[in-house]
């Protein structure tokens, strides 16, 4: 009898261990771009991991509840992965948060690019601009400040990116910022019709050369190139430095998977490598997520190290000052220990 019980117990334990799933913590609710990214990647990754990947969306605190849950509750869980996005990256720079990227190992980093389009009849150099204080829009706010000056910007608070998109469709806004997938869907037809013009993007982040021309939009200048072309000189000064810092972190770390040190990260990295080496999976992911490179394993560490190099005391101070004084963010705080110098 004891034997039977012991056998059943061990079978249950074995089955439990064998069926223990991976967990992907997503600090955004279902329906958001980051949550969709997580669902697409998790479904594909399962095939290569040979185990289920349960997506756990944890909303709250502008994403901080999810990040804190990963940092504390899943600290000792070898099978929990975190998906952080560019908005979290900017929050880490500007605010005093209870978590740090430095405590985790990167597994995969996917840089992205955000495109800025204006209405064809909008004279961006001479007319004022309505700009939404939406989540994740800090680099655009800085880019426009660099190009037009803060005094020529009507900064509209309590306006989400979705509301800004509606305002653009109605013609209340003369500018829209979008990730590649949404830009292709919504705005490329307007550009083709001649009712809108792609003005600038931030470029594609590379660890060696910073922002380079995005091969998806070869005819669109980066914000820095646009400034140089327009004013005949290269940008410099506090706004430029703050812009570079905010933009490389938001777009360089647009989507990042992290695990705790000592977790099964090598298993996950190996699965990613096999997934991206498979032509069908690769094509599927590009069709869903856009044609931007994915860096995993040592390459993702190289990206993170390159990003940390950008965080100098001077740049961070400029960025926090801009957020506090111009954007009037009450939570903007300079925190020691984030900079390289």
């Amino acid at each position: 009898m004891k034997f039977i019980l012991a056998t059943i117990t061990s079978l249950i334990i074995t089955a439990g261990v064998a069926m223990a799933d991976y967990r992907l913590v997503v600090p955004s609710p279902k329906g958001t771009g980051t949550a969709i990214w997580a669902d697409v990647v998790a479904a594909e990754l399962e095939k290569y991991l040979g185990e289920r990947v349960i997506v756990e969306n944890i909303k709250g605190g502008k994403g901080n509840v999810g990040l804190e849950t990963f940092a504390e509750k899943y600290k000792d869980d070898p099978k929990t992965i975190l998906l952080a996005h560019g908005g979290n990256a900017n929050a880490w720079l500007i605010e005093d948060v209870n978590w740090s990227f430095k405590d985790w190992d990167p597994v995969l980093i996917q840089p992205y690019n955000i495109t800025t389009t204006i209405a064809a009849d909008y004279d961006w150099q001479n007319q004022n601009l309505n700009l939404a204080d939406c989540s994740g829009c800090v680099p655009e706010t800085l880019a426009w400040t660099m190009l037009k000056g803060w005094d020529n910007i009507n900064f509209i608070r309590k306006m989400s990116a979705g509301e800004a998109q509606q305002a653009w469709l109605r013609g209340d806004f003369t500018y829209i910022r979008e990730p590649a997938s949404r830009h292709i869907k919504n705005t490329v037809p307007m550009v083709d019709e001649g009712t809108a013009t792609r003005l600038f993007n931030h470029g594609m982040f590379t660890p060696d050369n910073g922002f380079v021309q995005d091969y998806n939009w070869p005819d669109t200048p980066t914000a820095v190139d646009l400034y140089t072309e327009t004013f005949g000189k290269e940008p410099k000064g506090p706004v430029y430095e703050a812009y570079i810092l905010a933009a490389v972190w938001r777009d360089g770390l647009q989507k990042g998977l992290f695990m705790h040190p000592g977790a099964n990260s090598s298993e996950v990295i190996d699965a990613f490598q096999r997934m991206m080496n498979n032509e069908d999976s690769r094509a599927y992911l590009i069709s869903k997520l856009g044609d931007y490179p994915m860096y995993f394993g040592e390459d993702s560490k190289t990206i993170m190290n390159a990003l940390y190099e950008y965080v100098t005391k001077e740049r961070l101070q400029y960025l926090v000052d801009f957020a506090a004084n111009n954007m009037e963010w009450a939570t903007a705080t300079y925190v020691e220990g984030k900079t390289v110098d």
Partner: protein
Amino acid sequence: MFEIFLFVLLGVVYGLIFGVIPTAGPTTALLTSYTFYPYFYSDPYLGVAFYTAMVAACTTGDTWSSILLGIPGSSSSTATVIDGYPLAKKGKATYALSAAFTSSTVNGLFFGSLVFFLMPVYSKLLLVFGIPEMLALNVLALSAVTFLIKGKISLGIISVLIGFILGYVGIDENNAPRLTFGFNYLEDGISVLILASGIFAVPELFDMFIGKTKLQKLESSWKQVKLGIFAYKKYWKVSLQGGAIGAIVGAVPGVHGVVADWLSYARARAAYPNRKFGNGNIVGVVGPEGANNAVHAASFVPTVVFGIPGTPFAAVILSIFYLLHFDLGSVSIQSDSDFYKYLAVGFLGGTVLVGILCVLLSKPITVLLKIPTTIYAPLILFLICWSCYQISHTYYDIAILAVCSTIGLLSKRLELNRPAILLAFILFSKIEALTIQAVSLYNVTSLLERPIFLLISFLVLTVAFTGVRYVRN
């Protein structure tokens, strides 16, 4: 054909289960069925029909809990409770349910057809309703709160203020935390689902559990079902007006479904100024139920045409459809006639199926009221806790539910106006954000050049004036 019918039916059954769970609603139904999407890889169009039928069924099914338990089936079906629950207490649950389902189904079909077949034309509404118009529409819904006040005016005003304070929780325009007491969780504000559960469901369940809720003699017969259908026939104009309100409000992203719910209730009361409401008037059921399905049908418009989800459930359905390779808002989707066909079949077929199912069940289901409440009250409480836990998957959800439940219990004991609390709560953050946006973008002169804004502003004054006169009387 059989396959489509089968998946519409499955969607209806699943949606109906979540419609019946108090306060759960279509968002919870979609979240819990999110992982089903890979089953539709072989035929994604079936997935469209399945999920759309689920939304339609949830929307109709949430009436059960509003009428039988006095707990809103979802946050946008609160108005039905006001007159529906007193009818159930009087033993006329079957009558109320039958009238509600008929109103909801007929309008779901009529306005659903209108929306799905005229979607490109319909989508222009988004372009007409700018920030000032959306602000005015939200204020109009808030002005309808005057119709909710009964008894002491001071209690009504206190209720609205409590709603405002709860809506104030979150972050201000400078990202500074407000009334969050150091909890990051609260920076996104209190969830509507949790607040609705706390102030409506838990107090009612508590009273049921201690045996305080007494239902009068139950008149459950097919005659009552017929009488319900006749009530709809008698007040079809009120239902149609409710549907029209829902069909407009639903198509405007950023305006919560609760706006249509209360505006249609206010319209029903205004249509019969000499009748008493709040004690079981069937007109107060037919009106808001007329808006119920129409608002959900219309909320597909901005989601499908522009890829802009106007409601929480639309955000979830947008991502499910994306995973099924339907990129809502794209040029490709606009030329995909099969997608529109399955969307319409799902919603309209689901509406018909659930409508028939609900009307047929409205007699036998009331037998449930004979079961001792001490048995099913804990079960419903468990389901509500589970629904709330789906929001962030943390125990914060349950902790905030406990706080909101305390507020709900106290409000009930103090005879505060709980629907007014919920309405003020939902509208506060919308009105605040839209006011900040409107002040930043417009001046008085430019506002005076907007005819729709002026028209709605005029309606605000009319509704407020009529409401105040009603309260005085």
